């Protein structure tokens, strides 16, 4: 064996050991060969880690500010491929974290401060759940580019994945939460060391400390090796590259969370009610083209921070009549739901819309029903201005109208 080959072999072995660390806590025995070595494939070989067809070109695009948008119009089913998950940053790039060096510290108002390696966390009982993450500023000026036309450009800051990890409540029970502890501060290991405060009630309910996404470790842009998931809440809570959780007795008022924790008239800090119910037809949608009259399946996504989507209605006549769409079963709570509706296009100009209802009975409103909001407000992001919101409920869940012209072009009819 020449030295080049032996170098490559060593590289593969190290790579495989790393992969073992990242995926599971139980490492392969020393000297054990893996399939990848037998075949002699490098980890970047498409046969070792598969790629899509060169004819499939759907990609994320850049939004109005820092952030990458999911191509919702190309999606099928409810899962967003990890590589197409939207991404928001505060301007700092994803850190390049060696999982062997990464730690999670839990401290503050606890009986037993604890520090975990990734391997130790993966020894704990795990859960796997399908959740959407939606940016609190989705469907508004913080997402849209000028003259936004497509579902991606308008609503591309929502994605849905299968997440695996340990419940935060389990970690807190291991650490022993003390009396008087009512809030937590989570912090990331990125350059800007993103922090978020949140209530103990949510932490003990369903917050997930995730290391897995869609059957493999998180992608670096999604927080590798560890991130938080807040089912139903704005994506901004979901601290990536999670390295620390401090148990405290009040919100810590980091720069970006000041407006969120404005107390009500009785001095109580509101508990986020989650993202408002929203749906969007993804096919046909803005920027697409219908080749001619005839049968089309209208298909789209609906989701709500209130839990499960109970109903989606579709209008194919500009909102005069609405009919129930079929929901893809099972419908998961706090996840994208796929809806489908059979439609025969007669070739005339019309407007397609969808509206959803969640398990709370909340119905997605029209832009007019949202009240006092103009399309220009939407385009310029005024009504969903992040800092103006007293809690996390998104006010940007207007019904999205798509106009179909006689030529078959589909256009954004919002403005």
């Amino acid at each position: 064996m020449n030295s080049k080959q032996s170098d490559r072999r060593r590289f593969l072995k190290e790579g495989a050991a790393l992969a073992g660390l990242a995926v599971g806590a139980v490492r392969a025995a020393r000297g054990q060969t893996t399939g990848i070595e037998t075949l002699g494939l490098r980890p970047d070989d498409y046969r070792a880690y598969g790629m899509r067809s060169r004819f499939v070109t759907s990609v994320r695009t850049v939004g109005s500010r820092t952030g990458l948008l999911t191509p919702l119009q190309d999606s099928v089913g409810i899962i967003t491929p990890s590589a197409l998950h939207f991404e928001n940053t505060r301007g700092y790039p994803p850190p390049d974290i060696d999982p062997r060096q990464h730690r999670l510290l839990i401290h503050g108002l606890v009986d037993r401060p604890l520090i975990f390696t990734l391997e130790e966390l993966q020894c704990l009982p795990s859960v796997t759940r399908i959740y959407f993450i939606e940016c609190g500023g989705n469907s508004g000026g913080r997402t849209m580019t000028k003259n936004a036309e497509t579902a991606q450009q308008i609503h591309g800051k929502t994605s849905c994945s299968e997440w695996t990890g340990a419940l935060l409540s389990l970690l807190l029970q291991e650490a022993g939460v003390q009396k008087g502890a009512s809030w937590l501060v989570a912090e990331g290991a990125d350059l800007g060391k993103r922090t978020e405060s949140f209530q103990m009630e949510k932490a003990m309910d369903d917050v997930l400390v995730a290391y897995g996404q869609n059957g493999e470790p998180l992608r670096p842009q999604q927080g590798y090796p560890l991130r938080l998931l807040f089912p139903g809440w704005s994506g901004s809570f979901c601290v990536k590259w999670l390295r620390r959780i401090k148990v405290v007795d009040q919100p810590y008022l980091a720069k970006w969370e000041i407006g969120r924790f404005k107390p009500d008239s009785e001095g109580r800090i509101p508990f986020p009610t989650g993202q408002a119910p929203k749906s969007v037809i993804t096919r046909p949608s803005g920027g697409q083209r219908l080749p001619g009259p005839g049968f089309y399946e209208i298909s789209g996504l609906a989701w709500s921070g209130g839990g499960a989507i109970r109903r989606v209605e579709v209008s194919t006549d500009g909102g005069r009549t609405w009919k129930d769409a079929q929901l893809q079963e099972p419908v998961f709570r706090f996840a994208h739901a796929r809806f489908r509706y059979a439609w025969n296009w007669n070739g005339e100009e019309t407007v397609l819309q969808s509206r959803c209802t969640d398990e709370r009975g909340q119905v997605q409103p029209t832009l007019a029903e949202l009240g006092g909001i103009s399309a220009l407000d939407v385009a310029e992001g005024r009504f969903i201005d992040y800092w103006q919101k007293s809690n996390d409920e998104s006010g940007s869940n207007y019904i999205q109208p798509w106009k179909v012209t006689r030529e078959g072009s589909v256009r954004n009819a919002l403005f």
Partner: protein
Amino acid sequence: MVLGTCVAALAQTPTYNRGRTPSAEEVRAWDIAIGPDGKELPPGSGTAKEGAKIYARECAHCHGPTGAAVPSGAANLWPHTYSGQGRSPTPLVGGRGTLDTDRPMRTIGSFYPVATTIWDYINRAKPPKEPGSLSADQVYALTAFLLYQNNIIQESDVMDAKSLPKVQMPNRGYGGK
């Protein structure tokens, strides 16, 4: 041992015994989030006068010489434009009384309900090219400078772990949105 004690002890016992106890030094090194009462603030101090020099050197090229107006093209100075266009900084100074208008200006002076937020953010994330490179004294001095620019403290007021949490911010109690 009486049964009641046993039950109480059980509830406080970890089930899985994973993870280890961190050292005091490990906790200290990471315990950087500053709450409104300033418990985590480290020793050190600074004044606006000292802060002015650091601001001119480290901050002014993006935030403008006074913090009240952002220079054009500042967004392009942001070093981490990896997922889109640069982010234009928002003004740090001014904007009082604008929160309930159509064009709210959310600055330190108009919006921040507590002064600890300023210290926390400078210490955690600034300057963007090298967060963590400023000493505690420098962060206190910069915080003092920004409070002074917003007419909240005097130029000679010393900011430290004791005085900073006591600063009365114009938006304490969240009068504005």
